């Protein structure tokens, strides 16, 4: 079972690199959606016997992260009429290298952390750290609002992965609350992206600096 968990997390880590290396927005969104589905399935594999609540949470996560949120983002993308990140602050190859270095560092750091024995042999912690790091790289290095939303969602995936360490003690209500927040957040950002596009004639978040005091 640990093998299949590690396989899924490894897939997620690979998708991180894919999101970093891609210039087209649809492929970033796709990478994020597939990652959401892969991580959503994890709780089912990790619990020793079938539990209804865990299954419900997993199904909800897969539906929302894999289908609802990507759908909302694609719609916002079409409304704003862009499908490509044109001039990132840091190029694709450097961000890819940065992501790879972050992944290696995450694995290295994990060896120094005082983990419980049952978590020590999974990729949960390094995968989570690498995914969080990837999310940050996307947030910092990309300028279009939609790529930043993707970065934010990948960051959230990393946090979710870390939360799986506590799967037995996190109440179902909290899980579903987080999911609801995410959906509403992306929904709102979709609307805001549309507004930004209309006001600034671009989705470049650097132009938002004129809004500061």
């Amino acid at each position, binding site marked *: 079972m640990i093998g299949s968990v590690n396989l899924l997390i490894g897939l997620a880590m690979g998708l991180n690199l894919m999101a970093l290396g891609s210039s087209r927005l649809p492929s970033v969104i796709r990478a994020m959606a597939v990652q959401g589905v892969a991580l959503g399935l994890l709780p089912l594999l990790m619990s020793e016997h079938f539990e209804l609540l865990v299954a419900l949470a997993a199904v909800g996560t897969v539906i929302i992260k894999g289908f609802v949120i990507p759908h909302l983002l694609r719609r916002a993308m079409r409304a704003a009429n862009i499908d490509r990140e044109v001039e990132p*602050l840091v190029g694709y190859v450097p961000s890819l290298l940065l992501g790879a270095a972050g992944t290696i560092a995450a694995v290295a*750091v994990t060896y*120094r*952390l*005082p983990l419980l024995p049952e978590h020590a042999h999974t990729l949960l912690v390094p995968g989570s750290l690498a995914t969080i790091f990837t999310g*940050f790289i996307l*947030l*910092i*290095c990309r*300028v279009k609002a939609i790529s*930043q939303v993707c970065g934010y969602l990948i960051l959230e995936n990393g946090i979710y992965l870390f939360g799986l360490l506590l799967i037995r003690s996190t109440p179902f209500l909290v899980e579903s609350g987080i999911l609801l927040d995410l959906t509403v957040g992306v929904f709102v950002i979709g609307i805001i992206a549309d507004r930004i596009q209309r006001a600034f004639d671009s989705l470049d*978040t*650097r132009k*938002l*600096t*004129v*809004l*500061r005091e």
Partner: protein
Amino acid sequence: MSAGIMLAGAAGALALSAVAGLFLPRLWLGATVAGLAAAFWAGAAVLAGGAPWEWRGGFQVGGFAPHLQLDGLGALFLVLLAVVGACGAVYSRGYWPDQAHPRSARVGRVWWSVHVMSLGMVLLSANGLLFLVAWELFAVSGYFLVTLERQRAQARAAGWLYLAVSHVSALCLFAFFGILAARTGSWELGPMRDQPGLAPLFWLALFAFGIKAGVFPLHIWLPSAHSSAPSHVSAIMSGVSIKIGVYGILRFGGWLAVPDSAGWIVAVLGVVSAVLGVAFALGQHDLKRLLAYHSVENIGIILVGVGFAMIAAGQGDAPWGRLALAGALLHVWNHGLFKSLLFLGAGSVLHATGEREMSRLGGLWRLMPWTASLFALGAVAISGLPPLNGFVSEWLVYIGLFDASVARGAAAFASVSAIVLLALTGAMALACFTKACGVSFLGSPRSESAARAHESGPLMLGPMLALGCLCAAIGLAPVLFWPAIDRAACAWNPAWVAMGAPASLAAIGASNIALALACLAAAALLWRRVTRVGMRRAVTWDCGYAAPTARMQYTAGSFAGIITEWFAWIMDPQVQRDCPDEPFPSHASYEEHTPEVVLERVVEPAGALTMRLYAAARQLQHGRLQAYLFYIVIGLAALAAIAVMGGGR
């Protein structure tokens, strides 16, 4: 009548006066003087041997029960406050009348009442929160008094500096009382010498109260505030307000356990303030600024006494410490009296001529004989000359130091050097007041306004005369005032019991009386000869020069030039000269200016550097979301690094 009833009456009368000040100037004056008379009575009753007064409110105000107390130490300062407050109030009616200052006179009366009341409150508080409230009120009312003449940019700048520095002091006091309350578990104040863990707090108190007292490197607010305020305000600020700083140092140096080095530091600060205060005073050309620097000097003398008393307390209550403390406490009174007298005198000169620049005064002795005589009396007193009060208190400090110097140990070496430096201070103070009196009052007028001066009215001369009489009384009969000083000293250190006046004090009193009588006799003899033989007035011999002018007299700068040169290393006088060079020079000029060294060379550059650092830090806030996120990552990485490094523990 008990002290409590008198204090309640005083509070009521002062509250009434604060309201009456707006509309009814006469009622304001009556209520202020009556309230301060009641406060004087209460303080005098405690000093004359009555039991210390204490009052605890049975109710809560804002979460704490008010607790007031008046012991010998507080009473000593309360009596001084009452005298100077009343004299200043009477003086202000002549000096700052409604006709000349329609708006600020009203405001000034109200703030005067508030200032006096808050000063009294500080002296009575035995609760940390109450103390802080009173302290803040005292600082803020002082600000409004300093800026009464706010149409002058100089007064506004001085007020701003005063407010800023006062709040540095208040902030330290907040920390001091806060930590004290956290350690003891209550805001109540009182003797707690049995807790040696509280000793380091003394440094905080010394810094905060040292700012208020105007101790040398912390005095930056003092010269400009004292010289820009109206003269009656300068009188109470210099006479009483800065003494509250001394009160704080004494009060908390007595109630709390103090570090071993506390006495040494206080004594060193005292010596530095005394010598550099008088040196800077010599470099001033503005009469009120000169007096302000003398406040720094006299605070220094007081702190020398306090410091040696603390050293003695650390060495098993050596008896010389008690004499030094008594000298310091008496000097608190004396400086309050003669410095108020001098500031009121300077105010009369300013009122009559509109000039504070000494180089534009001169010859006032003939036009304002009363002001000149009373100013001269104050000058003799502040220079520490017999037969006046300054001599008595400095004498007590000196005999304390002399006794310390014959004892063994480090205190002996310290006291010898302190004696030498105090003697230097005294000599320079005499030189400085010779300059101030000579340049302002003697010679012939240097400007039109000085030539048209007029004597002040009775409302202004009366308070000066009263203060002058008190100076003379303490000088001529010091033994009468000893029990009060002794009671205050015993309140400072409960281990001491009352003792009679030292024998030398009675001898000083007798010799002062003899000296005064001899001076009077000599004056009478001279007067008789002058009236019998008659006087012939002539021009001063001018070496045959054909066209002498009043501007050829000694100026304030030229008189003090030699001594200020000794201190050029710290005073850094700015001189601009245009020397005459040809046989028939067409023009020449000479200009000298003494900067505020600590303010302009240390505090202002430090402030500018801080502002530059903050301006540089503002670059971080540019509105770029990506960079903000980058800050977060850096912060998280740093936290993770700390956690991983310390993860082994």
